């Protein structure tokens, strides 16, 4: 709750008239609010996961006729790409902390590329599948889960694009930037969700 970093730069106010002096730690508020939001968001995924587990364990004809299961190899590559991108974005953040903007941009763009590759891989997998959204509970839950997660990956890449563009505004990231921190937190979140998803969909067959 302290507002040290902002307030300490100001001279101690003799008479606090205007409210300039007690400007709160807005960056901290944003980060806090964002974490609260992510916690809430994770419950949507949790609900879908629970739904998936219930359907899978109780449904009489789980797989649509003619479908044997899911191919694991390509999704596994996809998974590795996405999970490693969490490390890459972390490196980008480190560069930003050291005020090395170009290092930041380099690894940031790499993260975006990895995210986009994941989306591409997901699309390729969807194209090749012998079942659709309306093919029974398996088809429904599969596309629901991967689609909803994919939407989040897409959002993440878009956010990263915005942060990248904003890094070109001179002086903008001098004091670190909540937007970058929040985006990277979101990216880790999307990753963790994917790991659970991967285990549910591909490992538990």
């Amino acid at each position: 709750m302290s507002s040290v970093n902002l307030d300490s730069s100001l001279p101690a106010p003799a008479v606090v008239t205007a409210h300039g002096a007690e400007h709160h730690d807005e960056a901290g508020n944003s980060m806090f609010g964002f974490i609260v939001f992510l916690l809430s968001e994770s419950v949507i995924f949790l609900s879908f996961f629970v739904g998936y587990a219930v359907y899978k364990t109780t449904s009489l004809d789980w797989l649509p006729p003619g479908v044997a299961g899911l191919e694991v190899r390509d999704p596994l590559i996809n998974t590795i790409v996405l999970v490693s991108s969490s490390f890459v974005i972390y490196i980008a953040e480190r560069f930003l902390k050291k005020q090395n903007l170009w290092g930041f941009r380099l690894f940031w763009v790499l993260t975006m590329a990895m995210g986009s590759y994941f989306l591409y891989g997901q699309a390729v997998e969807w194209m090749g599948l012998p079942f659709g959204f309306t093919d029974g509970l398996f088809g429904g839950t599969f596309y629901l889960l991967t689609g909803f997660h994919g939407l989040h990956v897409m959002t993440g890449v878009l956010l990263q694009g915005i942060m990248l563009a904003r890094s070109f505004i001179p002086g903008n990231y001098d004091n670190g930037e909540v937007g970058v921190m929040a985006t990277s937190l979101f990216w880790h979140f999307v990753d963790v969700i994917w790991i659970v998803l991967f285990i549910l969909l591909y490992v538990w067959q």
Partner: protein
Amino acid sequence: MTNISVDALAPDRAQPSPGEPESWRRFFTFSTDHKVIGIQYIVVAFFFFLVGGFFAMVMRGELITPEADLVDRTVYNALFTMHGTVMLFLWTFPVLNGLANYLVPLMIGARDMAFPRLNAAAFWLVPVFGVILMASFLVPGGPSQSGWWAYPPVSLQNPTGNLINGQALWLLAVALSGVSSIMGAVNIVTTIVRMRAPGMTFFKMPVFCWTVMAAQIIQLFGLPALTAGAVMLLFDLTVGTSFFDPAKGGDPVLYQHFFWFYSHPAVYVIMLPIFGVFSELFPVYARKPLFGYKVVAVSSFIITGLSGIVWVHHMFASGTPSWMRMLFMFTTMTISVPTGIKVFAWVATIWGGKVRLNTPMLFALGGMIMFVFAGITGIMLASTPVDIHVNNTYFVVGHFHYVLYGSMTMGMFAALYHWFPKMTGRMYYEGLGKLHFVLAFIGTNLNFLPMHPAGLMGMPRRVASYDPEFAFWNVLASLGGFLLGVSTLPFLLNMISSWIQGEKAPANPWRAIGLEWLVASPPPHENFDVIPTVVAEPYGYGKNEPLIAPLGSMELTRELS
């Protein structure tokens, strides 16, 4: 009470005081001032309360005779669906958000909410989804007719075959309402956790803020489950997936779990802030500190926790296995413990006090009494064998109107009267307020008490026609309903005329203790000229201690904080 003079905190800026007639236009703008947004919420919600009440009037008109004669059955079904939806999603949630918006920053000593623009965006979604919901009266096939639960497969039936149908619009509206509520919840929780004035620790915070926070946390963990269920239902309805459609192997009961996992806790989203209102009002009008303040505050969070593990009590008859019935019966009953702690604390607060029965106190007392009644019928419902008989009968309808009208809406009226001088800078007319109370109290009991015997006799809810044996109780209920409708007239008259030409209100007309009463009525833009430093627990009635530190010591506490 407090050593600090009010003038010291009053604004010195020359700006039109908010609430002056010339500035009414700002209520129609995209303002980011929490006080403007708060009032915007309250006014819009009250408009929809009238709309939902109007639907109820037609329903009671239909039910005054056993035959389905006033409106067609499809219309009746649409009316109760929309009545329930409007009352919950467009009256209770927005009006409570409005109250929280207005009061929380003032009570914790902040200038505004943590995210003012998010706040405004969350508010403006309310009229948007309100209009979407109302627009469903115009689409072919009419509005959703599947009740406010929207249980599949009924909600999937879509007799017109149109893609844009009442049910789809209903789902869209509920989803937008969820988005708005999540935005509001993130904002309120962040504000309470991070924006409290120096010295205001959690255990110096008014109970209203505690209950609001406990309620908003429920929104955060509950709404996502409803959203998940609603998304799946929407896909079933529009693209033909099979999640909840038994004809395609889906599981309709799973939807019920998703729905109640949110919609049970939602009743505490509705009730907790009203508990907060009671906790604020009783000390003021009994002139005594809140009895057991800390326990009352903390019990809110116990309720939040328990509210997440009781939802199956709405599904005792839904083919729920016996172990689940017994487990959830027990968890449900335990809620009476933290709730009882609050109720007894209020009684003890009033006991031995100097009770003053003006309008807010009357509404708070009436609301509390009806809450105890409803809580007891709630415990009866929690008992599986009893619920197997009365589930989906008017007994349940009676139970929840006693909470939703008898205590939530009455409690909201108490709050509106109590903070009206603060919000508008004007006093309301006490006589009209008392008239409103008398009509509302008699009306509520006449309307909703007869529903209990009707339900015990076996009258199902959601029926447009019924067997003549139930006619007696229904006539009484309808008369009570019309009386309730009439009771809103003195309220409207009071609010509008007082706002325009009521007597000017001082900063603290009730001699109440709390940061919001230290600033002018209405409070200036950004609330405090100087953010105060809180040094005492709230509700220091009879203790003669200052609530905030004198201005001179401000610097010192600032450095310490």
